[in-house]
């Protein structure tokens, strides 16, 4: 059963169901409202906030539930607490690249880590229930805003300058003055303070800053747009986040571009601060154990592949651009961006050795073994050649049949079986990092390690985020609404100069302190008493009593 519209018995205006103060004259027309929930009638100008349609459909029930501020605040609180849980252990996004999550969490954090992982907390912010909470937040935002915003808009649009006497007395700021002569002057004084004047005979309405009331609704709209944008993230093709690992000199294809784009790492630069440069930082730099990095960047050449058809086929590359990618200075192409993320110099590029005889004399020149594509033999002198019989980039163990087993294909712990061939005689030895073992007996020659060179690999992040403009727009609108709602005050002053006495009442959505100050300045200049603050009197009475 729908509640009936209410006709004001004073001015005759027909009000929507549930309205407490007549939209036109402000008289109380409906005492039957939830006094516990609505403490300040003027918050929504006495208009009906919660639609009083008795719940019919399931949609009405759901809607009414989500219009509640208590529900909204609860949802916000649950989201905040859940977010906190996600900070107890690092999220999966932050663990080392390539690490197996289950292993990682168990190894580092024991049983707690395993449980944390099993419950899905390691990917908390994209978990189904967190997404669901965000969806409920969106529903709450929409329902609460529509339910309050629409009646408020109508009320403020239709408000009249002439208000019922009871309306005046109801306001927090109110006073009654003996003479009505100053009314017009006072109104003019307020107008000079940027108030807009609306008159109805001897009734004055002075208003400024109404925009402030729309602040919350604007900011809620911004948040809804932001939530919609972040939801788009899950749609294919909208969001791409990949790591590109490129060694110096290497050309790699850009992932997810289906072979259309390639880039070459023309050079990786790593600079550190000079601790003797004569600047004010010298002392700090000298005291620090590690070097402080001043810059690291990758100089790249971008290519477009003209024959991007079949996977695996050799690309035909055409150079399209050059750039130096540094932190805070990403490279943009198409919808993508390349960021300088970090670097890796843990992979060895080459190792240099030399041959020595039993007396320690060096024979011939040093020979350099390239660990990515090693040569099979190295001519040391006229008579002596060194052959590489076996090589494992990441040495694990020796198989039964003599082959070297490698744990990974990455040269981080290389081992070699070298054969020193002099004419018909051959000697074999196994070389590892910091360790050399003779395989044949009584070797005359030994191979000594000279130096190693590392690969400088640049780690770049490839990003494409089509949802970002939407999310950004949403947040900007949110900020605008927030600033409008917070920094502007909506002030209204009513003056009733009809009759023998002049009634003045005022309302603001915040900062009564400032409103009082402003009003009292005008009142004082017209030799009138200060405006009376109902709430201040109540507070003082409470303290005394």
């Amino acid at each position, binding site marked *: 059963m729908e509640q009936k519209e209410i006709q004001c018995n004073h001015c005759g205006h027909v009000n929507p169901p549930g309205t407490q103060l007549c939209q036109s004259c402000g008289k109380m027309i409906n005492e039957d409202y939830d006094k516990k929930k609505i403490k300040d009638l003027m918050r929504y100008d006495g208009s009906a906030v919660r639609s009083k349609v008795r719940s019919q459909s399931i949609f009405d029930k*759901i809607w009414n539930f989500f219009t509640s501020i208590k529900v909204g605040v609860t949802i916000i609180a649950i989201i905040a607490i859940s977010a906190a849980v996600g900070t107890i252990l690092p999220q999966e996004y932050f663990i080392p690249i390539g690490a197996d999550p289950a292993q990682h969490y168990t190894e580092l954090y024991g049983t707690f880590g395993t449980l944390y992982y099993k419950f899905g907390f390691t990917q908390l912010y994209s978990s189904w229930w967190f997404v669901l909470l965000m969806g409920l937040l969106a529903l709450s935002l929409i329902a609460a805003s529509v339910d309050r915003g629409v009646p408020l808009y109508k009320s403020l649009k239709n408000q009249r300058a002439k208000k019922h006497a009871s309306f005046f007395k109801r306001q927090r700021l109110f006073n009654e003055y003996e003479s009505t002569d100053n009314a017009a002057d006072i109104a003019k004084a307020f107008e000079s303070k940027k108030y807009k004047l609306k008159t109805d005979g001897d009734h004055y309405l002075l208003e400024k800053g109404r925009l402030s009331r729309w602040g919350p609704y604007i900011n809620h709209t911004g948040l809804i747009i932001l939530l919609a944008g972040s939801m788009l993230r*899950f749609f294919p093709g909208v969001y791409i986040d990949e790591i590109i690992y490129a060694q110096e000199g290497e050309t790699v294809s850009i992932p997810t571009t289906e072979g259309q784009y390639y880039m070459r790492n023309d050079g990786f630069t790593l600079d550190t601060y000079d601790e003797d440069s004569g600047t004010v930082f010298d002392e700090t730099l000298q005291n620090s154990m590690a070097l402080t990095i001043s810059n690291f960047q990758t100089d790249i050449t971008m290519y477009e592949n003209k024959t991007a058809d079949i996977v*695996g086929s050799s690309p035909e590359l055409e150079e399209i651009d050059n750039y130096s990618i540094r932190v805070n200075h990403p490279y943009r192409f198409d919808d993508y961006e390349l960021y300088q993320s970090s670097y890796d110099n843990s992979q060895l590029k080459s190792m240099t050795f030399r041959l020595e005889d039993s007396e320690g004399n060096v024979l011939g020149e040093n020979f350099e073994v390239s660990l990515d594509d090693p040569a099979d033999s190295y001519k040391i002198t006229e008579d002596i050649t060194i052959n590489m019989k076996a090589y494992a980039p990441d040495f694990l163990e020796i198989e039964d049949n003599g082959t070297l087993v*490698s744990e990974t294909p990455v040269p981080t712990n290389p081992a070699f079986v070298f054969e020193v061939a002099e004419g018909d005689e051959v000697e074999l030895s196994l070389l590892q990092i910091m360790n050399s073992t003779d395989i044949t007996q009584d070797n005359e020659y030994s191979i000594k390690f000279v130096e190693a060179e590392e690969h400088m690999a640049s780690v770049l992040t490839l990003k494409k985020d089509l949802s970002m403009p939407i999310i950004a727009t949403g947040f900007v609108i949110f900020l605008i609404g927030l600033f409008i709602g917070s920094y502007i005050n909506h002030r209204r002053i009513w003056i009733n100069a009809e009759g023998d006495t002049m009634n003045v009442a005022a309302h603001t959505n915040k900062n009564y302190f400032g409103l009082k100050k402003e009003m009292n300045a005008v009142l004082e200049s017209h030799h009138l008493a200060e405006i009376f603050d109902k709430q201040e009197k109540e507070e003082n009475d409470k303290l005394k009593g």
Partner: protein
Amino acid sequence: MKKGTRKIIRTGTIITIAVLLGVTLYLNLRDGTQTVNVGDDAVDFKLETLDGEELQLSEITAENGVILNFWGTWCKPCREEMPEMNQVYNEGHEDYEIIAVNVSENPQQIEQFLSGLSEDLDYPIALDSNRSVTKAYNIGPLPTTIAINKEGVVVKKQEYQLTKEDIYAFIDESLE
């Protein structure tokens, strides 16, 4: 607000949010399983073999079923699996081909590895030097074996080591 308008707004909003949430959650949950699966079309590719020949998948599947075996020299199960595959292969392979796709290693390492096996391999070894084929098939652990039939459709996929029976099963599937 008119009763009718109100009803539309309420119902519309709730349904829209429910639908959007549903789609989002579905996509979210599905995201983790983005691999090439049984029933999908096999991604065509062109790779060079260890012998220097060029192989194109679609050319082979035009006539034969194909077993793709993704492997690496550091992968222990591969060392056991490959000789067995070779034995089965040599029993007769008129209708199918095995292609061992090596995941981005240099020829020297591969040669070294092959020389250490209990027998020489007779089927082609394709070199996926920049991992593009491996990525296109979203290969995770190694070895992974995929069977593709003459229509170019993936009919079987198995991760980790195959037994001899598994190998036979793969061949049978690829022929269908």
